[in-house]
């Protein structure tokens, strides 16, 4: 593994995102929606609210916080391969010594850093806002350690899952928008699982949160390996799958 090559990919990708209007608009607008909505929800909960009402409101916030790492990364990740193919930059990159694994890690890291950074930043803002202005009953439920640990662990792991899905779709589609839509759709089922915790259908505890996080980590590692295998230079350049069976007669 070459850190210099991976860093180069990350730096280039981030520079490109920052100058891409579509990415900037999505990365700017979606977090604002996810920031405004929970604040409006939480500040409408009165001090006299019942336990069920509070849990429902906090559940919505938790879920929204976990939607961010699922929805944001595909915007970038789905662009990573098919976008380069579209603009004709993929072939020159593939002629350099960078192995597929390093290229993919660089691209995944470039999608991971801003989306997880944004997700954590929004979560932090929401927590600060709740600490400063929300009803006491809400604060008690939100600042529950297992809930916090689950959120902190799940945000990067869900983002990674979503990123690998996005890159996988990107290696096999021929249109950027289709890739982004498919990647976002493919990432949604995992939210069904997180909503069980957000709405406390599965009671969060520290061991459960860590156990689930480890399971997610294993899934992420598996996804990374599968994506590396899906990355077929020949298919990306010519549209045909590589045929490794060489004709013996001509050898």
């Amino acid at each position, binding site marked *: 593994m070459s850190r*210099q090559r991976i860093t180069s*990919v990350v730096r*280039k990708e981030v520079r*490109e995102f*920052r100058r*891409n209007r579509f990415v*900037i608009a999505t990365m700017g607008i979606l977090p604002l929606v996810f920031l405004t909505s929970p*604040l409006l929800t939480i*500040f409408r909960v009165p001090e006299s609210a019942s336990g069920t009402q509070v849990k429902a409101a906090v559940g919505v916030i938790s879920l929204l916080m976990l939607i961010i790492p699922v929805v944001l990364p595909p915007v970038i990740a789905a662009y990573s391969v098919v976008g380069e193919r579209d603009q004709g930059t993929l072939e020159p990159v593939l002629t350099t010594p960078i192995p597929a694994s390093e290229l993919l890690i660089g691209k995944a890291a470039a999608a991971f850093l801003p989306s997880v950074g944004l997700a954590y930043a929004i979560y932090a803002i929401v927590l600060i806002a709740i600490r400063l202005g929300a009803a006491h009953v809400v604060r008690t439920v939100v600042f529950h350690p297992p809930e916090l640990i689950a959120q902190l662990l799940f945000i990067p792991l869900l983002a990674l899952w979503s990123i690998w899905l996005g890159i996988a779709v990107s290696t096999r589609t021929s249109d950027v928008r289709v890739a982004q839509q498919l990647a976002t759709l493919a990432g949604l089922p995992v939210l069904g699982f997180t909503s069980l915790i957000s709405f406390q259908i599965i009671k969060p505890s520290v061991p459960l949160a860590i156990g689930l996080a480890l399971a997610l980590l294993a899934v992420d590692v598996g996804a990374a390996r599968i994506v590396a295998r899906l990355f077929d230079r020949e298919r990306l350049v010519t549209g045909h799958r590589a045929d490794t069976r060489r004709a013996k007669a*001509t050898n």
Partner: protein
Amino acid sequence: MSSPHWFQGRRIGLGWRPASWQGWVVTLVSVAALVAAVTLLRGSSARAPVAILVVAVYSIVAFATGGSRAATTAHSEEARDDEPEPSVVPEEQRRALRALSSGRVVSRSDEPALVVEHLTKRFGDRVAVDDVSFSVAPGEVFGFLGPNGAGKTTTVRMLATLIEPTGGAARVAGLSLEPENGVEIRKRVAVMTETPGLYLRLTVAENLEYFAGLYELARPRERIELALAAVNLTNRASDVCGSLSKGLRQRVALARSVLAEPAIVFLDEPTSGLDPVASREVHELISSLREHGTTVFLTTHRLEEAERLCDRVAILNTSLRTIGRPDELRDELFRKAIVVRTAAPLNDPDAVFAVSGIEGWDTEDGPNRYLLAVTDARVVAPDVTRALVAAGADVLSITEAHHSLEDVYLELVDDNKEDAS
């Protein structure tokens, strides 16, 4: 295509300042909203969240729209596209190329740069490249010619380890063309694809910086400066590639190709779509590459370009049709000939052309223009002149027939069409 750069500065909290009126409007509105929230919502529990929200919105907008100074400068200079392109200064280019190629590692000096043996590529049932064999010497400029779909790009892609051959073998820059040597081969070669393939939102220097990183170059800044000097683009380093003309983009792609001191440079139609001046500049650069020992594998449709630049050419039409020096190919395919033009048709051409060394004759483009097949034009021409004068012919001209590489190419391609039919 690039995003608005309302804020200059590279990171949150460091050196932020609005760069345009839009940035100032966003800043003033945000400050007003913050002051309003703090003063109007005094005593309310919503004061802190609203203030936080305003700061968050402002931060996101500023972060999202802030661009680097280089990009901002280039963005504002898109109009410069119409300016004349800088002219090439060959001596400066040569100096930069010399410096660029000073550290090149070559495998063994006596070993060919490329050895291709029975290389074949099939896509399903379609044969793209069929049993192609040739070798290229180090420092040679080798032309690879052929009609569209002949398999030129496929051959380059195989040799650059982008796609795997179906059959055959090759050695590229001293390494066997095997999947396990892919990374090592790609360190020793560079490919300039037909389209420049630049990141249009990045500046010229940022594009090269990316590739310098991928090649893990030591002292990348120095290398980038030399590569830009080699293509005479030093003064456009901060320009966004999207604002460059096609010719300049092609030059950036060339700079990228020579960045990593490759032993072999594959150039796929490097002058495609360029005007004559830009094409000449690319030709000069290719000549400079040869002078400094780089092997150049040139794929082109421009036959005069191949004739002018290449030591040898190969003509491909799925299979290899011929290979050799352009003059060798001409001699091989066309008989030596003299063209005689007279003011009026000769009365008895058979008698006039009964000169030793003439193997046959025919009229060409009219009755008073004769094409004589000869053994050696220099020996036969004086005898023919004397015979014409003796016959009382009014001679307008006697010239040696010249066949271009284009004639060779067309002859072979037409042969292929006949074979196919």
